[in-house]
């Protein structure tokens, strides 16, 4: 990728920030501002940021919901079932994991409670889910922040599963 060549047109905020020396801390960061302008500026920035994030997150949410309705969750849990054993989890734990990744933690907890899991298995699954959840919507958030959302979502999935394997091994050693 040639995004970091200095000769590239500086179209993007992030890119311009990179070429420079670390920007001197802004004046606003060093001196407290009068309350009223600060309140106004904060509201303005808040609304603008909200709008920007919403524009990225709502389409991602639409995609996630569509995938769920198309039955992708069942297909993915079928795939994931055999893998669950490496984390010391039963195959049935694939469903809450896939629900967490595609939708969110709340969806996963609903499915988790229907399963007969031991305390240690709940902890392993909880750690995997806490690292790797809501990957589509939060991938859009990371993308908005200027990074590659797909890379970060896949990384979270890999790091979450690896964490599950590690925690399961640690439980085996410690017990």
């Amino acid at each position: 990728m040639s995004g970091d060549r200095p000769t590239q047109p500086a179209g993007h905020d992030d890119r311009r920030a990179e070429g420079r020396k670390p920007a001197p801390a802004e004046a606003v960061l060093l001196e407290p501002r009068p309350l009223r302008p600060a309140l106004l500026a904060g509201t303005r920035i808040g609304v603008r940021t909200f709008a920007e994030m919403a524009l990225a997150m709502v389409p991602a949410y639409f995609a996630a919901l569509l995938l769920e309705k198309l039955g992708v969750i069942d297909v993915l849990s079928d795939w994931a079932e055999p893998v669950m054993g490496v984390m010391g989890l039963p195959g049935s734990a694939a469903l809450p994991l896939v629900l967490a990744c595609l939708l969110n933690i709340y969806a996963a907890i609903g499915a988790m409670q229907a399963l007969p899991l031991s305390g240690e298995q709940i902890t392993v699954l909880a750690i995997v889910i806490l690292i790797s959840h809501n990957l589509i919507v939060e991938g859009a958030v990371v993308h908005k922040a200027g990074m590659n959302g797909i890379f970060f979502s896949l990384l979270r999935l890999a790091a979450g599963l690896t964490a599950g394997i590690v925690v399961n091994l640690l439980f085996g050693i410690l017990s």
Partner: protein
Amino acid sequence: MSAVGSFLWEFLRGTWDLLWKMFVIIVPIMVILEVSEGRRWFRALARGWARLLRPLGLSEETATPTLVGFLFGLAYGGGVIVRDARRGTIGRRQVFLMSLFLSMVHAIVEDSLILIAVGASAVWVFGFRIVWAGIVTLLVGAAATALVRWHRKRRG
């Protein structure tokens, strides 16, 4: 028709839930930041937090977004990253490292408590995840830095 209708209805309801919650959190966060950034207590807090994260390669400019994301959630930390990128105070490398750290651990209170409530061990959920976030940030950060260096060198 009714399948499409119920899908759209669920989408609209879900979008409403997502948006109003985000609005009532993100606007106050930005107002509080505008009022407090620059005040002595806030700078002390940011410095203290930055000192904890310095071993991961994160600079002091990343203190506010990482703290907001760590406490409240990725969307809010991401919002502050967007704000600071707009102001030009953070470079790409720092945004990458922040995204790594926040990808592994965010919304530490809310998300963790829900899972502890259904039976997960609090020590592991908090302790392991924070340590894991540190490890992943260090490893992937180092790998990415090496890759970028190698890439630049190869191109002269």
